């Protein structure tokens, strides 16, 4: 990985040098050409890399590949800048031309649109020489590396929920596009070339259209970047699951459309505002408004979030929310068009421009109504909440255990069966039916009002023999524990105050760990019964194997119970199963101690047991 991170940019730099050499010819010293032009962009990308490196923190193992990438980019940028400065041109004399030149026939004046397109091509190329745009590209590269490579295996949400992040992933490049476009539009004024340009027949409006057409560049880059990132995730993120919906296409299109929005905002600011920091102020305002829109009415359903340029991903799983994603796309497109009309109106306010602006404004208003309106089929969504069984596929896992998931997420059924099957088969036949069922994973207020109405004032609870499954794939990895806890009469969730049940010194706690370890490799099984901080002075921390500081376990052991569990797990499974099954009712009783179980298995006792005080956990 490190070799690739260093080799690939070095190869790129080498190719760039080759291109610029070939362009300038063998008689010339190697000129800057493409290489030198890339300097600001490479510098911008390296700057982003440094930012990410610092943000990752000292303990992160991902720092090393990011550092490699930063060094490679910095190396390429240094070569690029050196090429720029080395190629300072010595004064050249002005020799007489070898022969008279024949000028081309002066063409008939091209249409405004042709001129705008030609300008758009130039401005699109110039974007790549902007350090600001380079910073945006750097973010795209770094986000791809982080989400697609380094942390790919940490992606455990549904595909629908993941793709909803597309606008967020696009924002760094969009923001930098605002800055780059503003710099482009104000370039003539800063370089005092405006007097010369104003004597050319192309009017300011045509030039504005040319700047706006450079939006093609960030649009294409975003399309490629998001496609690449999601494609990489298909390969490298084994835990992402669930279907993609048509709404996800709207999510991606909206993110791509934001690229055009960034350019139009930068152009409009450059045309109207003579303040150099205007784009930075505008970005701060847009970001502030976006975040504020996302937090209106928190917690609970927020219809205004869809008007944010980066809508917050709703907490409940996607099948419980009708996001109006296409209206959000229409909103983004309308906003872009309104701002584009404003940019044009600086120099031209005829019927076409005004009409275009008004039409865009009308679309924006319609979009606001659409995004804040009712879902298309609220009864269907309500039914998924109140009667999940009617919308689910179920499969027997073994013994009396079955697993039920919503049909849209049927692909996780097999994974769950594989996890809970060994646990289910290890249970005695006297254990009653246990159903692991996916249920709505939020509060009533998280649902849209039209969905809440058929449900009433309270969410329905699960049946007595049911264990609620969520939608986070990593939480589903605890399904084995859920089956074991349910069979032993232990809770599968902390209580209402987020306080877990303490089973210190109880045999049922050790048996729960042994059951959950069924089907695991020896190393996995040992880790299951090991605290990440066995040396902690806190008995609570010594007694929980959960290494997620943001998660509240339902059960906490003592350090001695974990030690006992590792010993039991190390015994032959058949031997333990015989003792467990034959004494099942005894071991289920909270009064049965760990040492009793160990004695039955021929193991030495581990008491006395820590006094573990129950308290809320998962405080991050």
């Amino acid at each position, binding site marked *: 990985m490190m070799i690739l991170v260093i080799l690939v940019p070095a190869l790129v730099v080498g190719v760039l040098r080759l291109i610029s050499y070939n362009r300038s010819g063998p008689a010339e010293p190697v000129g800057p050409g493409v290489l030198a032009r890339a300097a600001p962009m490479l510098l911008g990308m390296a700057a982003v890399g440094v930012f990410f490196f610092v943000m990752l923190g000292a303990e992160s193992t991902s720092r090393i590949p990011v550092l490699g990438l930063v060094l490679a980019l910095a190396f390429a940028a240094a070569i690029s800048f050196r090429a720029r400065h080395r190629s300072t041109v010595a004064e050249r*004399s002005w020799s007489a031309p070898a022969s008279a030149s024949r000028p081309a026939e002066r063409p008939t004046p091209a249409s405004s649109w042709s001129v705008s397109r*030609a300008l758009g091509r130039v401005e699109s190329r110039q974007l790549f020489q902007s350090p600001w745009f380079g910073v945006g590209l750097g973010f795209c590269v770094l986000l791809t590396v982080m989400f697609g490579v380094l942390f790919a295996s940490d992606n455990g949400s549904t595909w629908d929920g993941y793709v909803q992040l597309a606008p967020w992933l696009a924002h760094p490049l969009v923001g930098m596009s605002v800055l780059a476009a503003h710099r482009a539009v104000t370039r003539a004024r800063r370089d005092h070339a405006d007097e010369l340009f104003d004597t050319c027949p192309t009017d300011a409006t045509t030039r504005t259209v040319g700047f706006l057409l450079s939006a093609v560049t960030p649009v294409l880059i975003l399309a490629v970047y998001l496609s690449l990132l999601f494609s990489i995730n298909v390969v490298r993120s084994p835990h992402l699951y669930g279907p993609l919906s048509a709404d996800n296409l709207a999510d991606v299109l909206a993110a791509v459309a934001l690229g055009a929005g960034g350019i139009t905002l930068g152009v409009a600011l450059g045309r109207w505002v003579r303040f150099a920091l205007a784009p930075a102020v505008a970005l701060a305002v847009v970001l502030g408004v976006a975040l504020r829109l996302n937090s209106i009415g928190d917690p609970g359903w927020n219809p205004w979030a869809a008007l944010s340029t980066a809508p917050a991903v709703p907490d409940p799983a996607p099948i419980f929310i009708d996001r109006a994603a296409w209206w959000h796309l229409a909103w983004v497109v309308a906003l872009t068009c309104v701002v584009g009309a404003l940019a044009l109106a600086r120099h031209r306010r005829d019927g076409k421009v005004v009409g275009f602006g008004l039409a865009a404004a009308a679309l924006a208003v319609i979009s606001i109504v659409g995004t804040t309106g009712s879902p298309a089929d609220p009864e269907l969504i309500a039914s998924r909440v109140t009667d999940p069984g009617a919308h689910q596929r179920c499969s027997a896992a073994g013994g009396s255990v079955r697993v039920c998931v919503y049909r849209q997420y049927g692909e996780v059924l097999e994974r769950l069966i594989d996890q809970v099957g060994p646990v289910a088969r290890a249970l005695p036949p006297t254990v009653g039916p246990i159903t692991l069922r996916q249920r709505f994973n939020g509060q009533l207020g998280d649902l849209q009002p039209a969905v809440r109405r058929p449900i009433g004032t309270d969410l329905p609870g699960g049946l007595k023999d049911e264990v609620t499954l969520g939608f986070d794939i990593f939480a589903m990895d605890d399904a084995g524990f859920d089956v074991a806890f349910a069979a032993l009469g232990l809770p599968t969730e902390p209580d209402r105050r987020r306080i877990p049940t303490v089973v210190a010194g109880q045999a049922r706690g050790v048996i729960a760990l042994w059951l959950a370890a069924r089907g695991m490799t020896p190393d996995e099984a040992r880790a299951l019964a090991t605290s990440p901080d066995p040396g902690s002075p806190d008995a609570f921390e010594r007694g929980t194997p959960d290494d997620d500081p943001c998660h509240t376990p339902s059960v906490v052991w003592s350090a001695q119970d974990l030690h006992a569990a590792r010993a039991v797990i190390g015994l032959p499974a058949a031997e333990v199963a015989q003792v467990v099954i034959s004494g099942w009712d005894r071991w289920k009783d909270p009064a049965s101690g760990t040492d009793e179980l160990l004695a039955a298995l021929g193991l030495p006792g581990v008491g006395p047991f820590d006094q573990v005080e129950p308290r809320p956990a998962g405080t991050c």
Partner: protein
Amino acid sequence: MTTTPTISLVGVSKGFGSTIALDHVDAAFAPGINGLLGPNGAGKTTMLRILATVLPADQGRLDVLGVDPTTGDGRLSVRRRLGYLPQEPGFHRQFSAFDFVDYVAILKEWADRKTRHDEVRRVLGLVDLDSVMHKRIGQLSGGMRRRVGIAQALIGRPDLLVLDEPTAGLDPEQRLRFRELLGTEASGATVLLSTHQTDDVAALCHNVVVLLSGQVRYTGTPAGLAALAEGRVWLAADRDLRAELAWITGEGRVRHIGDPPAGAQLVEPTVEDGYLVLAGHQAHAAPLAS
């Protein structure tokens, strides 16, 4: 060469606040190379900027290439036939010379890429910058940047060339090349050239206008301008304090303008001498014509 004027100014005035840059100026320019002489602040640049449609006049009538540039259509028509080099041209320093001239060509409505690139290469070749056309402008010397400015003005062989101090920053050899270039490339066009270099005027221009304090003080040939100093230019060994103007020449003698110093030798006047005589007149004196 036709003498019918293609550009005429009648009673043109322009002010900037309390400063009057042009004061009821009457002038006419025919096809050929027309020089504009005058000290700093005389109004040369203002006149050129008005004719290049950068600024509107406050008063007066203008006719540029047969159209009235005060109207929108007139301005567009002029701009389509105009090549302009400002006094201090601004360049996008991060652009290469080729890219910058190409950009100007696009603004001049050369939308077809092949034709445009051929023209850009041609004009850069005229100023002998084709070997460095892909270098960034920021890396070029001042003289080479000036040549880039000249090149962009020559795009499309315009009918009207307005050049404000085009030879500033050029060494003598480059000024010679510039004269050659103008002689070939601008034939048939109306060229307005403002300069402080009187020998450029003498070598290039068939017509010269001298502006002083916003007013035209002379219109005519360079020879006629030189003739204003006829009988008033002397060379002496030493400086005469009574002379209107005196300076040491490269040969070590002192050139005087005005009454003859003792022992001085009368010499043929140059355009510069005529200009200096003119500039020494009172501001309200009547304009002189040949």
